[in-house]
């Protein structure tokens, strides 16, 4: 029998109460929000519970929402997959801009290692307890976190491009 979204929702709420919120079905995936301090417990529960069995971490990524309130500017999005019942869920955890810190899930899933490093590299989100949290794709010398939305796509130091010929100003590029 397939694992119903309602069952997942009920079980998670029963276990964690106010630490989980905002359950919504987006297309085929149940999405909900978890308080950052509970992420490791929730993931452990989802992985080890006999009914839920979310045994596979599909993906970890970050999102930056500069227009949101200060304490919800960064989000870490986890996709989990139950291979037995073939059900996916998406977990979001919002973090404050001043102190984006969350527990690492490497103790549960070895594969989270590089995914979290990538998220750190792009957004500067600190994963507490990560075995080796350093930049992975960008150069070690880089000082900014390039996927934050205020950071421009193009290299600012370019001299071979005259913005006038591209119809661009400082505002629109």
């Amino acid at each position, binding site marked *: 029998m397939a694992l119903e979204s309602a069952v997942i929702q009920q079980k998670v709420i029963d276990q964690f109460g106010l630490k989980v919120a905002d359950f919504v079905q987006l297309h085929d995936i149940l999405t909900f929000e978890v308080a950052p301090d509970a992420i490791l417990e929730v993931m452990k529960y989802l992985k080890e519970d006999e009914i839920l069995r979310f045994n596979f971490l599909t993906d970890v990524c970050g999102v930056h929402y500069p227009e949101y309130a200060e304490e919800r500017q960064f989000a870490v999005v986890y996709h989990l997959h139950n291979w037995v019942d073939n059900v996916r869920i998406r977990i979001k955890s919002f973090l404050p801009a001043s102190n984006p810190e969350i527990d690492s899930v490497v103790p549960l899933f070895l594969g989270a290692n590089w995914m979290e490093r990538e998220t750190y590299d792009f957004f500067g989100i600190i994963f507490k307890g990560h075995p080796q949290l350093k930049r992975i*794709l*960008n*150069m070690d010398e880089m000082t900014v976190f*390039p996927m934050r939305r205020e*950071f*421009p*796509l*193009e*290299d600012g130091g*370019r001299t*071979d491009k005259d913005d006038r010929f591209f119809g661009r100003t400082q505002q629109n590029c």
Partner: protein
Amino acid sequence: MSDTSKYTMAEAPAGYAGEGFFATKLSDVVGLARANSLWPLPFATSCCGIEFMATMASHYDVARFGSERMSFSPRQADMLLVMGTIAKKMAPILRQVYEQMAEPKWVIAVGACASSGGVFDTYSVLQGIDKVIPVDVYVPGCPPRPEQILDGVMRLQDIVKSESVRRRSSDEYKDLLGSYNIK
């Protein structure tokens, strides 16, 4: 015995031929020899590298142009083929490989990324390898077809053939390398 008529000989340079002798310029002979035995160093980083694999394989066969032996050691290569995006993290390595090559050395920038950064006009990509090393031939395309890569090799052969044997010790050449801070 195989049929020798299938093979084309490299064309002899202009000169005076007589009975038992042939007189021509030394630089022409050196150029002829160099142009027809360019040992490539494939510096393949991404998609263009796969097209280079196709160029190497039986269908296109770059060996027909004297480049049979892929030289993965920069010390024994004449022609550096830079294929694919060079990120800023990669740039010092590319430069080091170039510096390790022995003179005379030539560079072909294969594909849009190596030539100009291509579609990746971003903070992490070097906007053309000519920012760090001098380039002789640019091959356009994203990725170029194997025919285009072969054409690039042939254009380079033309350059090599006509290059003076003294060019590498000239002041202009030293200035060129100096402008890239290569000693």
